[in-house]
């Protein structure tokens, strides 16, 4: 879908300003989205850069308002999937961001009850994890998840119901097991 560019014929200033708005409103959520799904800060920086590069190049396709965030989540999700398939692109523009994240981001280690939860979560298929994460981590409702994943709201409702059940089963079986070692939640395989 193409969205009309507010303001009519888009001059470079207008285009830049629109991008600035999208970037300003969404850089923190996209940064969080990427970091939550990979424990490699380099990857996270590249995902952010590539996501917003896509937004810059396809600015006419970026919907207005809060819908832009959902659109960006969808792009970031595909970029992460490409990374998982080994199609990682190192983006030079993200060098400073990469350096800062590398210096400051340490994926959490979970112990005790949280380790059980994290292990159960990691044991789920990727589509289940993404559904649960979009709701639990990004705080999206069914309609917003549907927009990110490009499916119907009803499909989200059904899939989420099943994912929750599988998570509950996995968690229950984990609780029956001996105490696990500390668990990272991401390990870079979440995309």
């Amino acid at each position, binding site marked *: 879908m193409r969205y009309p560019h507010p303001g009519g014929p888009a001059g470079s200033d207008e285009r830049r300003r629109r*991008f600035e708005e999208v970037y300003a409103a969404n*850089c923190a959520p996209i940064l969080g989205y990427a970091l939550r799904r990979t424990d490699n800060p380099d990857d996270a920086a590249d995902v952010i850069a590539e996501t917003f590069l896509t937004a*810059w190049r396809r600015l006419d396709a970026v919907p207005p308002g809060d819908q832009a965030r959902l659109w960006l989540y969808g792009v970031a999700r595909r970029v992460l999937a490409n990374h998982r398939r080994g199609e990682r692109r190192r983006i030079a523009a993200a060098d400073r961001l990469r350096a*800062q994240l590398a210096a400051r981001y340490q994926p959490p280690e979970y112990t005790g009850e949280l380790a059980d939860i994290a292990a159960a979560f990691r044991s789920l298929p990727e589509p289940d994890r993404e559904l649960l994460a979009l709701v639990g981590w990004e705080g999206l409702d069914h309609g917003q998840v549907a927009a990110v994943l490009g499916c119907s709201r009803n499909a989200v409702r059904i899939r989420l119901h099943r994912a929750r059940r599988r998570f509950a089963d996995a968690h229950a079986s984990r609780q029956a097991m001996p105490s696990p070692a500390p668990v990272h939640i991401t390990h870079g395989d979440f995309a």
Partner: protein
Amino acid sequence: MNQIRRISPVSDADAARMVRGDALADLAGQIVATPVPEQSGRPAARAGGGSRRPGSSRGRRWRLVVPVAGVAAAAIIATGVIVLHGSSGPAKPTVGASHPDAVPSFGPAGTAAQLVDYATRSAAARPPFNPRPHDWVYTDVLQATSSAGGGGYLAGPPNGRAEQKTWVRVDYQKYAYIEGGKLVIKPSDAPVSTKTGQAVLPVPFGWPSASYAYLNSLPTNPAQLTAVIRHNLTTQPNPIGTEGTGNLGVFNAVQTLMQNVVLPPRLLAALYGVLASDPGVHFERSVTDLDGRTGVGFSTVQESYLKEQIVVNPKTYAYMGYVDVAVRAHTSTALDGTAHFHKGQVLGWQAMLASGIVAKPGQLP
């Protein structure tokens, strides 16, 4: 789902704290310096021709408007308030750029999100709205009346019209109106403060103040503004309704403010954002105001019968008035009597024909 939340590796706010604003600004600056592939429907060349790439204007300096260090900066970043400004000047909306008083417009809004987006950007392109105490607030309001009378609602068909042009001084010490073709200026008849001896600004239901100092201090982020409104409703409850601090209470507080106060455009846009974020509020693609003008709007149905519609100018994004309609037959029983409404009955209809800030009474914006 609480368990999933507990294992979230990092929050958006914490993620934002890990990077400095200059790194984010640097990334944005480099992104907009990259060439954009030509797309259908977009002009191939910018006005004035030449081969300059979009985003490659030299000398453009990027900076963070809110270069606050530490946690405060992160919190601001997390709420999306980072704004990158260049030296190339403000945006150039399609309408109004050559007329200092015209309202910048980004075209007709076809969705709630567009309305919020366009109104926000239009407001941002306008000068700050800071009326001085001795400025005057002008309103020209057209109100429907009924030959059957009324009392908070129209008891019969909206077959009458009453127009009122009023000037109220910003500090509320005087007001003015036209009577017999002449301007009449009077001291305010509002209650007088025992401390200052001056008339006290009336407070709309659900709000602690209607002063522009207060209104301009409100957050323009819709989520934050909603939180403020909910908080206000706990301390400034609407004595008329029983809608509480839920979504209905928020809608009514927003509508009350729009009806009673000429609002700063940025706050007005944020209030549209508040309404747009409420799943119980619907976007109306076409609403006709009392003057016959077509607008867009927001609506909600209260008490299962009363559809309240806020009318908004689709191009200037200004508040245009309201329309209240019974969407089903209803009998209202109250201490002051019983009223029967039939389906489709218009219970209230008002159009804000004009409004603005002027220097003296009798002046028009």
